[in-house]
C-alpha cells in the first residue's frame, strides 16, 4: 500500500513536470522571431511534398522533418506558432515515453531523473521552439537507443520493427542523427556478439532492411556530402571550438554551470564503473556508459570528418543524441539515496528556471522585431521596395516581407521606377555611396534604428526628388 502511494506520488511529480515544461515552452512560442535556418524552413514549406523532397535534396539535410512540418501546416494552418508547437511536441512525447518505457526498463527514479535532466538541458527550451528538425531527431535517436536495450533483454518482432522504424526516421531527419543511430546499431551488434550470439543473424537481417529502406536517399546523401566537402558555411573547428561544445551543452548562464555538469558526468560515470567492477547490475551499467558515449563519439567523429574534409560539424548537431547522455546520467545516479536525489532534482529545476529565463529574454526582448514589424505595418505600402545591404539576412527578410520586392543594395538600380525605397543599412556591410543621391536625384531620410533578429540596422526612406 505504502509502496503504491509512493509510486503514484513519483508518477504525479513526473506528470507535473511534463505539464509545467510543456506550458512554459508554449509560453515561449508567441513571437515572430526567427533566424536564417528557420526562415529556410518557413520558405520550403511553401512547396508541396514533392517540392520539399527536391528542395531538401539540393540543401544539406534529409527531408522527414519538413514533411512532418508540412503535414502540420496542412492540418493546422500556416502560422509560425503551429510550427513552434510542432517542435515542442517531440520533447513532450519523449518525456511521456520516459514515464512508460524507461520506467518499465529501469525504474521510476530513472524516468524522473531523465525527465528532470532533459528539462535542465540548457539548449532544450531554445531548440523546443526553434522550427528545425532537432527535437524530432532527438525523439527518434533516443527511442532507438532505449529500444536497443529493450531488444537485448527480450528479442521480440515488434521491438525489432520499432527499432528499425525509429532508426530510419532519425536517419531521414538529420545526418548526425544517422551517425548516432549507426553507433547504437554498432553497440547492439557488440552486445549480441559478447552475450547473445544467436541474435546476430537477426541484427544482420534488420541492418540489411534498414539499408534497403534508406537506399532511395543514399545517392542524395553522397551528392550532398561531396557538395559540403567543397564548401560549407561552418567556421573552422579549433581546440577552442571543441571546448565551446561543453558550454553549449551545459552552460545555463550561471557561473561554473558547465563545470558542475561535468562533475555530475564524472560522478555518474564513476558510479557506473563501480557497478561494473562490483558486478552488480553490470549489464545495465555497461548499457548506460555506452549510451553516454554516443554524443561524445558523434562529436568526435564529426570533428574528425571536419578535419579530413571541410568543417561540417556544429555543436547543435549533437543535440539529437544528448538525451542518451542524460539517460546514462539518470541510470548512474539512481542508486543514490532519496535525499540526494531530491536535492539533485531541486538543482535541476533551478537550472531549468535559469535557462527558461534566458530563453524568454532571447525570444521576446533581445531583438527589435516587434517595433520593426509595427513600423512596417503602419508605413509599408504594397509597391514599396525594400533594399538591404546584408546578404546574410536575405532569407530572413524574405520571411518578414513576403509581399514586397526585396533587393540587395548591390543589385538595386535606382534609375528604375519606384515611389519609396526602404533602405535597411546594416553597419559594416555594403556601403551606400551617397553619390547615388546626386546621380539619380534621390532624397534619403533617416527614419530610425530598427532590427530583425540580431541584425540591427539604420532605416532610411529613399524617394525621388
Amino acid at each position, binding site marked *: 500500500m505504502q509502496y503504491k502511494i509512493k509510486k503514484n506520488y513519483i508518477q504525479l511529480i513526473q506528470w507535473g513536470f511534463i505539464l509545467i515544461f510543456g506550458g512554459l515552452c508554449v509560453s515561449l512560442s508567441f513571437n515572430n522571431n526567427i533566424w536564417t535556418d528557420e526562415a529556410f524552413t518557413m520558405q520550403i514549406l511553401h512547396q508541396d511534398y514533392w517540392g520539399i523532397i527536391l528542395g531538401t535534396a539540393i540543401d544539406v539535410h534529409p527531408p522527414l522533418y519538413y514533411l512532418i512540418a508540412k503535414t502540420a501546416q496542412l492540418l493546422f494552418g500556416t502560422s509560425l506558432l503551429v510550427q513552434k508547437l510542432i517542435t515542442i511536441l517531440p520533447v513532450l512525447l519523449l518525456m511521456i515515453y520516459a514515464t512508460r518505457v524507461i520506467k518499465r526498463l529501469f525504474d521510476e527514479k530513472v524516468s524522473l531523473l531523465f525527465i528532470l535532466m532533459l528539462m535542465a538541458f540548457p539548449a532544450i527550451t531554445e531548440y523546443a521552439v526553434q522550427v528545425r528538425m532537432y527535437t524530432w531527431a532527438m525523439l527518434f535517436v533516443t527511442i532507438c537507443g532505449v529500444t536497443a536495450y529493450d531488444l537485448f533483454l527480450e528479442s521480440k518482432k515488434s521491438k525489432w520493427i520499432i527499432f528499425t522504424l525509429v532508426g530510419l526516421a532519425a536517419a531521414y531527419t538529420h545526418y548526425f542523427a544517422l551517425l548516432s543511430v549507426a553507433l547504437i546499431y554498432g553497440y547492439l551488434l557488440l552486445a549480441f556478439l559478447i552475450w547473445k550470439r544467436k541474435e546476430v543473424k537477426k541484427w544482420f537481417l534488420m541492418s540489411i532492411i534498414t539499408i534497403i529502406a534508406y537506399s532511395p536517399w543514399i545517392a542524395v546523401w553522397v551528392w550532398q556530402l561531396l557538395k559540403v566537402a567543397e564548401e560549407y558555411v561552418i567556421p573552422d573547428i579549433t581546440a577552442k571550438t571543441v571546448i565551446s561544445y561543453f558550454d553549449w551543452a551545459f552552460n545555463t548562464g550561471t*557561473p561554473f*554551470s558547465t563545470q*558542475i555538469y561535468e562533475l555530475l558526468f564524472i560522478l555518474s560515470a564513476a558510479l557506473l564503473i563501480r557497478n561494473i567492477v562490483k558486478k552488480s547490475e553490470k549489464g545495465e551499467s555497461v548499457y548506460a556508459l555506452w549510451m553516454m558515449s554516443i554524443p561524445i563519439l558523434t562529436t568526435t567523429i564529426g570533428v574528425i570528418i571536419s578535419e579530413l574534409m571541410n568543417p561540417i560539424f556544429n555543436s547543435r548537431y549533437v543535440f539529437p543524441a544528448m538525451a542518451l547522455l542524460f539517460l546514462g546520467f539518470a541510470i548512474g545516479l539512481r542508486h*543514490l539515496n532519496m*535525499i540526494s536525489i531530491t536535492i*539533485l532534482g531541486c*538543482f535541476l529545476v533551478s537550472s531549468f528556471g*535559469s535557462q527558461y529565463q534566458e530563453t524568454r529574454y532571447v525570444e521576446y526582448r533581445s531583438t527589435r522585431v516587434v517595433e520593426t514589424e509595427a513600423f512596417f505595418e503602419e508605413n509599408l505600402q504594397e509597391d514599396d521596395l525594400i533594399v538591404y545591404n546584408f546578404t546574410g539576412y536575405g532569407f530572413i527578410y524574405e520571411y518578414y516581407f513576403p509581399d514586397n520586392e526585396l533587393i540587395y543594395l548591390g543589385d538595386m538600380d535606382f534609375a528604375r521606377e519606384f515611389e519609396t525605397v526602404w533602405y535597411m543599412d546594416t553597419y559594416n556591410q555594403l556601403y551606400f555611396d551617397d553619390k547615388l543621391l546626386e546621380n539619380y536625384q534621390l532624397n534619403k531620410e533617416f527614419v530610425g*534604428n530598427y532590427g530583425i533578429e540580431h541584425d540591427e540596422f*539604420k532605416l532610411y526612406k529613399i524617394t525621388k526628388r
Partner: protein
Amino acid sequence: MKKNLIRIGILIVTIGCMLSIWPLGVIMKESESKSKAALYYNSGPIKDAVVFKQTFIPKHNYIESISIQMNRDNTFEKGHEGEVLFVLKDENEITLSKSVTDLNQVTNKDYYEFVTKTFVKKGKKHTYTIQVTECESEGPSVRFGDSMDIELEENQLLSYGGADFPEYSTVALYRYRGELGIWDVLQFETILLFIASLFLFQINRENKFEQKKDKNGLNE
C-alpha cells in the same frame, strides 16, 4: 565520535560555502549593457586639453571594462601616433581606474575595451574621461549618438571640450560582474547540498558496514 566530527565538519563547510554564495555574494555573474545600433556621430578631435567625458550610473558593483568606439581616420596620415589616457572616477572624483594605451592599439570605429576591473557604487554617478596626448595629428574622435537611439540606461551627461551635450550619449559597452540571480543562487545552494549529502551518505554507509562487521564479529 570521529565520524560525528567529520559530519559536523562537512555541515559547517557546506553552510559556510552556502552563506558565501548568498548573502555574501562571493561568486559574481558577468553581464553587459551595450548601446543599440544608431546613427553615430563623431565628436570633434580629442587632444591634450580637449577632453571627452561621460557621466554614467553603473548597474552593478563591479565593473570589468568599459568599451567605447573611437574614429582614428584623422590620425591616419601621422601614423596614429599618440597615447590615450582613460580615467574612471567615482562621484567624489576619486580615481578608480586609469590606463594609458598607445593610440595604434585602439580599434578604429569599433569597440575598444578599456579594462577597469574595479568596484564601483551601484546607482551612484561615476565619470570616465578620454584624453589623447603626444599626438601630432589633429587627434582622434569618440563616437556618440542620440540618447534616445543609443538606449543605454547607464549613460547620463556627455561633455566634450568643457561643453555639455545632454541629448547625446557615448556609444559604449559596459561589462560588469554583478550579484547572482535567484535561479543562480538556487543552483549553487542545491549543488552544495547535493555534494554534502553524498559525503554524508557515504559516511553513513561505511558506518553501517562497520556496525554490520562488528555485529558479525560478536556473533562469531
